[in-house]
């Protein structure tokens, strides 16, 4: 059961930093002594989680940007995993 709330705002967790890595040509999330390299779709979704935009708007925005019908399930699953990893948090 996902505990992700589409009406809530999520942001990158404190102590974590998301940045574009020119050398790797990818987005990464950095945290104490660790790093994850994000694939393109995860990066597009997490970039939009700025702590102020409700997740439902993030989903609508992604659907418009990539001309996809229903990304809701995918994004909820991603945020659920990211919450468990501690990369994002509820704002």
């Amino acid at each position: 059961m996902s505990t992700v709330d589409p009406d809530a705002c999520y942001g990158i967790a404190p102590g974590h930093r998301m940045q574009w890595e020119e050398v790797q040509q990818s987005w990464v999330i950095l945290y104490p002594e660790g790093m994850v390299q994000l694939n393109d779709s995860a990066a597009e979704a997490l970039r939009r989680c700025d702590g102020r935009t409700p997740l439902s708007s993030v989903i609508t925005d992604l659907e418009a940007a990539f001309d996809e019908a229903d990304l809701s399930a995918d994004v909820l699953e991603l945020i659920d995993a990211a919450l468990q990893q501690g990369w994002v948090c509820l704002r």
Partner: protein
Amino acid sequence: MAHPPFFLHRSSFTAACDTMTDSPQEPLRPLWLLAELTYSCPLQCPYCSNPLRLGERARELATDDWLRVLGEARKLGAIQLGLSGGEPLLRKDLEVIVGEARRLGFYTNLLTSGMGMDEARIAALKDAGLDHIQVSFQADDPDLNNRLAGSDSFRKKVEVARRVKAHGYPMVLNIVMHRHNLDRMREILDMALALEADYVELANTQYYGWALANRDYLLPTRDQLQRAEAVAHDYQARFGDRMKIYFVVPDYFEGRPKPCMNGWGRIFLSVAPDGTALPCHAAADLPGLMLPNVRDHSLEWIWNDSPDFNYFRGESWMQQPCAGCDERATCFGGCRCQAYLLTGDAAAADPACSKSASHDVILEAVERAAGLRSLPQPIMRNKRNVARALRHPVGSPPGRADTPLSD
């Protein structure tokens, strides 16, 4: 704080690195830069993984050298920066180094004993952009902590840990584990919870440098380890959402070596206080290395082309049993330094591996330490004790015990 970096215990970093470095078109990158700013330290931990020959402060790199190294490393793809030592706070230019590192896009980790941190400094480091602070403790018990550190340091460490949290840094508590504190696992984790650590690294001692010279003093018993591990797992289950707990069974007890540095010259680059660049911070004593210095060579040449970084890169150096082993992509044959120190052959399988022909030396060391009726006195890590530590039978590389102290 001198011990192997935290990421070696963390799967996500490794996994991310694997996706990057194992695809044929991707070049190897020194994702992790360990800057050992000084080997000076007010503490004297007998398990310190610094080399026995501690070197002179006068030969340390200047600020500008470090700033150049940071820029060159970043161009090669370095992204995590460990500021370590010795005690890095002894460098007055630490804030300048942090500021430049952050400007370049590094995630900056300060690995400190806490000695030398005050309110003004911790605020200045925050302003400079420091991302994270790791504070090391020797134990939860003030007397034991102070005895192991060879210095009255416990109260200071608690004060520093509180400041770290008050300033909003993520905090890792690092405790090097061995015979004298493993039985206090519960108390140590309670302390970490009380200090609101975000991560606790229970780093079982690895036997290089000073730790090897003090092996009989430090080696735990199997029973101790099993009890401590059970406590760690219990706390992981109960408090894992508040605090991440890392406990890795030490290689001496596991029958398999650690994937040392995640492979030689694969993701890790260490620069010693005098500018020597190494694929592993404990590798300076390996025979046959030319020990390139960042004063003389570009980091790009050192990483890509120097003989040292290519010496044990990949698998072509491997002999049996590693060469034909189906686990070689997991452990990379283990630690080259441990292989050399304990077998005399740097290209042998790490003797911590049960498939190694020399595995007996590990089993015997464990057995001997468990049977000791009275423990030896620790050789505390300080300049006075260098000669004594070098004379110690397992404390120095084979055949090098009597080499006079160089320079």
